[in-house]
């Protein structure tokens, strides 16, 4: 095989590889949404897939901050963040979101992307719940009863913030006896409880929703063996007293212990709606966050807007692409055909690489692809103008072609490298869609260096190798 034939074989192999890399995406997006959901549930999603960004298919992007001030003094922040991510991932998985993305960002931030979820309220509830479940005894001593009456005379002992947290007022705080703590209950009530919580949610093994009396949903739970033992001892020692079930600092119910609970299971009643109870069960099962998280950025894109964006983005690409291809044909004739073929290969390789790396295609990413196409022909323009000059200087076709490639190379390399520099910084400092733009731009430039220089040069060689060809149609 000649050297040229070897090169052609190489390009052909790349084309076949690219098609293979793109096939899963093609197959995936030609399925119905229902079918995709079914495969998703069975974890049968292909690994090499060109993902669509939230801006193209609708969904919610959340940036959460772990409140590290609520961690114990000596806690390892990085470890706490990793644990928080793991727990949030479990919760989201159980919530049933297809293709979620949960990742760490920076020191204490967590990105959560929920494609297809545009009603964020319940998603935020599930993700943001600290799920710190505690069982505390009520202070039923005379002193405690006394304090309770005095606090009740103050009116509401809490100031309530917008985000649902309640802080105890200074006046009420003075009245709380040593060794006790005051907790808000549902419907503006308050509970005076022991400051220590002997049993916590960390001792839970499972939690699920059941229907209690009157059809009101309740959450039943089961302890791990140790937890069950401690819970049994606690209840045995406090028969006849009230035990409060506290979740995230809010008392859900405070039933009287009628008899020791030895089986290691119990229920939480709290006048739940079905959805509330279901969400509570999810967060209890997945475990407690090491510290509270707060939503610091939230972006929701409606599904129909995403569809519009895809349509207009692809349409712009199509029109722009056709115009560029047409222009190159008219201006450079046969050489334009070569350039267009290279451009086509460029896009094929670019998409294949994106699919292989599992990149996300965003709307700015689509813009990046079109811009790459506009700039990719630049290399060919440089070369062709060079060839024209050489021809004008009276050089024979073959020599003119080779000289054109030779001389244009340094300009092409330099110009592409400078664009790469800005793409790298865009990638480093950009977030979300901007990162997508940088990725397409970078991959596109790398591909175009190869296709515009190597592939078109090979085509010239193949064309000029024909016997009797001594003229070049370069417009």
């Amino acid at each position, binding site marked *: 095989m000649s050297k040229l034939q070897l090169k052609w074989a190489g390009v052909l192999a790349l084309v076949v590889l690219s098609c293979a890399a793109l096939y899963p995406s093609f197959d995936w997006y030609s399925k119905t949404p229902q079918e995709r959901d079914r495969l998703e549930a069975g974890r049968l999603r292909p690994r090499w897939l060109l993902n669509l960004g939230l*801006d193209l298919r609708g969904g919610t992007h959340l940036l959460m901050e772990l409140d590290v001030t609520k961690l114990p003094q000596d806690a390892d922040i990085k470890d706490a963040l990793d644990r928080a991510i793991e727990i949030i991932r479990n919760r989201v998985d159980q919530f049933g979101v297809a293709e979620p993305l949960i990742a760490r960002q920076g020191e204490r931030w967590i990105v959560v992307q929920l494609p297809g979820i545009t009603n964020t309220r319940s998603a935020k509830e599930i993700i943001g719940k600290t799920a710190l479940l505690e069982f505390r005894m009520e202070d039923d001593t005379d002193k405690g009863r006394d304090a309770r009456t005095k606090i009740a005379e103050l009116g509401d002992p809490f100031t309530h913030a917008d985000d649902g947290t309640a802080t105890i007022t200074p006046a009420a705080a003075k009245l709380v006896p040593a060794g006790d703590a005051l907790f808000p209950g549902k419907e503006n009530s308050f509970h005076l409880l022991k400051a220590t919580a002997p049993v916590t949610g960390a001792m839970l093994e499972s939690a699920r929703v059941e229907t209690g009396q009157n059809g009101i949903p309740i959450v039943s739970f089961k302890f791990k063996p140790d937890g069950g033992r401690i819970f049994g001892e606690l209840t045995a020692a406090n028969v006849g007293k009230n035990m409060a079930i506290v979740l995230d600092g809010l008392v859900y119910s405070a039933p009287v212990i009628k008899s020791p609970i030895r089986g290691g299971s119990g229920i939480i009643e709290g006048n739940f709606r079905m959805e509330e109870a279901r969400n509570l069960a999810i967060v209890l099962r997945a475990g407690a966050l090491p510290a509270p998280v707060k939503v610091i950025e939230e972006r929701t894109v409606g599904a129909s807007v995403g569809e519009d964006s895809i349509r207009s983005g692809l349409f712009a690409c199509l029109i722009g692409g056709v115009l560029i291809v047409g222009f190159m044909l008219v201006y450079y004739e046969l050489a334009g055909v070569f350039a267009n073929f290279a451009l086509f290969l460029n896009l094929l390789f670019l998409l294949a690489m994106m699919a292989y790396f599992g990149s996300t295609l965003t709307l700015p990413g689509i813009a990046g692809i*079109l811009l790459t196409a*506009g*700039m990719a022909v630049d290399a060919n323009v440089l070369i062709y103008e060079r060839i024209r000059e050489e021809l004008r200087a009276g050089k024979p076709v073959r020599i003119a072609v080779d000289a054109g490639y030779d001389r244009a190379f340094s300009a092409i390399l330099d110009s592409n490298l400078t664009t790469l*520099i*800005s793409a*790298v910084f865009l990638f480093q*400092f950009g977030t979300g869609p*901007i990162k997508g733009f940088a990725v397409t731009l970078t991959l596109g430039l790398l591909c175009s260096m190869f296709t515009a220089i190597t592939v078109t040069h090979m085509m010239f060689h193949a064309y000029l190798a024909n016997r009797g060809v001594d003229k070049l149609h370069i417009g």
Partner: protein
Amino acid sequence: MEFFHQRTHIDFIGNRYKFFAVSGIITILSVVVLAVRGLNYGIEFTGGNVTQITYEKPVAIHEVRLDAEKTASKDAGIQQFTGTNTFTIRIKGEGEGSAESVDKFLAELQAARPDNKFRIDQKDYVGPAVGKHLFRQALLAIVLSLLGIVVYVAFRFNNLVWGLAGVLSLVHDVLFLFAFYSFMRSEFNLTLVAAILTLAGYSINDTIVVFDRMREKMRIYRKENLGQVINQSMNETLSRTVITVLTVLIAVVALYIFGGPVIHDFAMGMTWGTILGCYSSVAIAAPLVYQFEVGHGERAAEGSAPAAGDLPPAPSPSEAPKGPQSSRAERRRRNK
């Protein structure tokens, strides 16, 4: 097909002061516009809320404003997409818990017009801390990538003056784009930062092609007048410059017309930036190199301002010196 059948003989170097004047005016105007109007930072950088809603039936913007005034959030800024029932509602920097307060606001807004339901197209909330962080990152990206480009150009052309000339023309383009977005009151967000960096990459790209030709010509015509060499380099690469600008323009104009509202501002800025970027590489960057190398402090060169003529035929490649560029001093000497 060919645009320039005849060799062009534009005297870029001889007219350099006119170009400098034009660019000086553009730059001063840009600075003034930026100083007076400032940038209209989007919530990505300031923190706050933006919601986009679309009503089922037509409704006038002042009616929506009236509805909004009746609700708890009085400071909602409302804009309408011309010719549609789509509105954006902006509530800036409310601080914590504002995602919830927006939900409440939207519920109240819907309650004011029960017979005309709206759907929520898009809802963005950015906390103040995130906004600050994103702004810092964006600024860092712009500054670092500009620096990276300078260093690269200076290194590749082995001459700080070329890097400086390239960067001055680049800053000129970038400043213009900032001013353009400021003038248009475009929401300055991360997408526009991407536009600016892409333009920076593209503009220097153009400059480098011209520089590359100049470097090549200088090696061959070591004895000729520098101005003449630069002029001819630019005339020879002119058709290439025009064509690549055309293809990129095709791409960005297609995005501008058909790409939808999200990348509308991005494409609009890129369109004007591309045109200016092309102008600056030909009319600013290369003449600046000449100015720095010759015009600066050497008035003698002025008298023999180069004519835009053809250079003598190039020596055959074997005769062309392959060594490194002639030193600056050497070139000065021959320009005297």
